[in-house]
């Protein structure tokens, strides 16, 4: 069975119609009312420029748009979270009857969490590293419900279980760094859901989730809306997610709303050029990959060879002797990465993709097996012995924010590989870096800006530029485009393709977006539970999946047709019941 991307004609209704609001009451006062909001950052960047919209109780609104168009800035403004950052806001925001301004911190505090909850775009760094995930959820829950410690803890375990964290009871006691990217993202969603808020503001809540888990999460949100009448503001770049989840959609570009309407209408009959561009750039999972990127040359000798590699992480408190447990994040994986190919890696959230990627570039020392690079075993090399290989092994990190030093300008971060390569001339370095900033679609003049001044997608592109600037032989990209809108995504993919031809680059491309993976990869590896369950030609994997898990993945690919999406959801729910 193949995934089907909805391209059937949409509802051809060109005018704005009130979107159906499940569980909502059309006549109600809006629960979120934004009027002429502008957000200006210190330095003069006007990130949001006169945005107005309403959200009725129980309704759902999607915000899509270009990376850096002000989506997150808008979302943050709804809970007054720009306070203290030096950003200047004008306009008026009212959420659940509360005017959001700096006036009364106590009023704001009551609004936050209980009435309106937020899922942040950067899940990796949004959790307190010092506390267990469960206790953080429990703390928030206790604060708003006055529940006992025990109740709060079991609530935390319950919601973690809801968002699909396996062994939730045990994992609740683990600190965030033992969670994979997708697991952390789900933990944050769990935190929001634990409170049953009236409004949920979710900023790219599924960027790190594989399609099956993503579907599960979206179903959960849907169920909650039906059950509690929660209103949903969903910021995402994934049009498939939009199609399946929201009724109404706003399209943003450069801080302004360029289009708004019922999701059906916007997706089928986009009114604005930008929207049209977006839609046309959506990669399709059912289309054979573009030869432009994958040249399909005859199999070459391997550049990287993994032999039975494994990674066992110690878990648990570890202080009590004998109570030492380990968990196998990667459990004996053997595979070759051929010189010049693009190897796609997909798999369940928490299946060990990031861990595998880190071992390939030897950021992690495998606890078992061998990693060979270009014929040399590098798995056990010391830092010093590894030095000569460093320039050839690069990685794009899954979490773009924590991978950038907050105290160094992005230009300097990108320049780092050049400097360690021995380039001393600052003029050369500056111009090279500026050129790379432009290549990933960033403003070269932002060389001296710091990471926190960038949007999620922009940071991701900084990471990509840094990985590529020194022309490595191998670049392992861990979810490199997860935070990018489809057009920027396309730009990055083109860039990779171009470099491949230019530099004989070998790419390992970890992603959860099956369509993107299909578009870029020569071969695709599927991971599940720390093991490699399938590895084959990209087309073969997509058209003739061998493993059950691969099949369920393909079945869960979101579609761009809201009706079809609803249909599928119903099917899934029927299966569960």
């Amino acid at each position, binding site marked *: 069975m193949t995934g089907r991307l909805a391209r059937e004609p949409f509802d051809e209704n060109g005018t704005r119609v009130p979107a159906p609001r499940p569980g909502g009451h059309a006549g109600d006062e809006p629960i979120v009312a934004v009027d002429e909001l502008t957000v200006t950052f210190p330095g003069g960047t006007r990130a949001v420029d006169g945005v107005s919209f309403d959200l009725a109780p129980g309704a759902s609104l999607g915000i899509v748009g270009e990376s850096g168009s002000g989506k997150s800035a808008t979302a943050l403004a709804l809970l007054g979270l720009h306070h203290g950052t030096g950003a200047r806001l004008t306009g008026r925001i009212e959420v659940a009857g509360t005017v959001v301004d700096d006036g009364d911190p106590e009023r704001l*505090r009551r609004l936050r*969490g*209980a009435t309106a909850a*937020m899922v*942040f775009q950067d899940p990796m*760094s949004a959790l307190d590293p010092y506390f267990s995930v469960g206790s953080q959820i429990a703390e928030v829950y206790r604060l708003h419900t006055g529940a006992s410690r025990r109740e709060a803890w079991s609530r935390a375990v319950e919601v973690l279980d809801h968002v699909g964290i396996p062994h939730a009871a045990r994992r609740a006691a683990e600190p965030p760094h033992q969670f994979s990217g997708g697991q952390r993202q789900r933990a944050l969603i769990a*935190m929001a859901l634990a409170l049953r808020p009236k409004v949920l503001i979710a900023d790219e809540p599924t960027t790190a989730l594989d399609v099956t888990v993503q579907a599960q999460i979206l179903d959960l949100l849907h169920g909650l809306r039906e059950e509690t009448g929660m209103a949903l503001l969903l910021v995402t770049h994934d049009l498939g997610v939009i199609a399946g989840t929201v009724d109404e959609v706003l399209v943003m570009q450069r801080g302004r709303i360029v289009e708004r309407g019922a999701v059906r209408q916007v997706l089928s009959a986009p009114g604005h050029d930008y929207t049209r561009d977006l839609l046309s750039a959506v990669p399709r999972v059912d289309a054979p990959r573009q030869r432009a990127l994958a040249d399909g040359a005859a199999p070459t000798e391997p550049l990287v060879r993994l032999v039975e590699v494994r990674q066992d992480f110690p878990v648990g408190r*570890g*202080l009590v*002797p004998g109570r030492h447990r380990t968990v196998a994040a990667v459990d004996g994986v053997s595979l070759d990465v051929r010189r010049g190919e693009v190897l796609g890696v997909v798999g369940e959230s928490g299946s060990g993709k990031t861990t595998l990627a880190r071992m390939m570039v030897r950021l992690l020392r495998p606890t078992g097996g061998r990693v060979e690079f270009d014929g040399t075993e590098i798995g056990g090399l010391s830092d010093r012995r590894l030095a000569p290989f460093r320039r050839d092994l690069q990685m794009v990190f899954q979490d773009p924010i924590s991978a950038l030093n907050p105290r160094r300008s992005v230009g300097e971060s990108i320049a780092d590989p050049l400097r360690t390569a021995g380039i001393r001339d600052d003029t050369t370095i500056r111009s090279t870096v500026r050129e790379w900033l432009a290549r990933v679609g960033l403003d070269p003049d932002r060389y001296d800006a710091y990471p926190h001044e960038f949007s999620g997608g922009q940071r991701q592109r900084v990471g990509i530029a840094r990985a590529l600037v020194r022309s490595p032989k191998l670049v392992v990209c861990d979810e490199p485009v997860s935070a990018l809108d489809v057009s920027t995504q396309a730009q990055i993919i083109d860039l990779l393709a171009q470099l491949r031809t230019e530099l004989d680059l070998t790419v390992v491309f970890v992603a959860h977006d099956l369509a993107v993976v299909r578009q870029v990869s020569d071969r695709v590896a599927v991971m599940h539970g720390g093991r490699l369950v399938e590895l084959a030609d990209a087309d073969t994997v997509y058209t003739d999946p061998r493993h059950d898990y691969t099949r369920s993945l393909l079945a869960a690919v979101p579609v761009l047709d809201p009706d079809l999406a609803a249909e599928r959801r119903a099917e899934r729910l029927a299966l569960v019941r």
Partner: protein
Amino acid sequence: MAAYLVRRVIGALVVLLVLSAAVYVIFYALPGNPAQLVCGPKTCQADQLHRIETELGLDQPIYLQYWHFLVGIVAGRTFSGGPTAIHCAAPCLGYSYQTGEPVTSLLLDRLPVSASLVVGGFVIWVLVGVGLGVVSALRRGRALDRVVTTATLAGNSVPVFLVGLLLLIVFCVYLRWLPFPGYQPLTANPALWAQNLILPWVALSVVSAAVYTRLTRTSMLETLAEDHIRTFRAYGLSESRVIRRHALRGALTPLITIGTIDLATSLTGATLTESLFGLPGLGQLLVTSVRNIDLPVVVGVTILAGAVIVVANMFADILYSVADRRVALA
């Protein structure tokens, strides 16, 4: 963990070995002759001096003295220089040149005093220091911040001796709220113990709190800039709760290291406070024994101090990795 502990214990033993050897070497280079000091202040006969030297083992080469010392620790040793042979059982640190008391009992005698002083003071200075640090971070740049900063730094600039003397004059002479302190064992009467130690505690705290206030304030500001703080603000945690639960934890990690160092070093280093308040603690013991070139006592105190520091730092490392589970014990 077990392997870690074994490694640390071995490391600790090496430290103590080097430490005691270093003291022996330095002792060799010290001006003055301990036998002369034992012998008496004015005329001391050459033969008397010689006898004392033999008795104290000072006639032997320094490496032999050190060797006997080590053997004494492991297996005990017998002193036969004096009129009667004395056996000193296994962890034997020898006898004071000056008073002839066993070093171990001297240490055991002084340790409770120093521990009472330092641990109590530590609790106060950390609580006050961290508390004021939090306040000044919260009110950063405002008047209260400036007042706290100025006040703690003023405390830091005044010699502990002066602080103590002023406290004594104010509380014991003018207000007469407290008697002039002297050490009372905790086991005998806890209330009296605390009453006698309150002024020394306060004196130590006034002088030491500044570091904690300043470090707490700084680390707090650093931690408050981290992303996860925003999460909890967004979930309606009050600013004070965000600070107490989420910022403080991160902010306190650098304090763990400084705190253990202060705690461990002031055990033998709070000399002035001990002297001023008449507390016969280890600090005073160290100073007098250094002054008297009383090698066994100096080595004893040094080894005790070393052991405390090694243990405290190990404790700090473990605490650190408990507080921040990303940090592995190595």
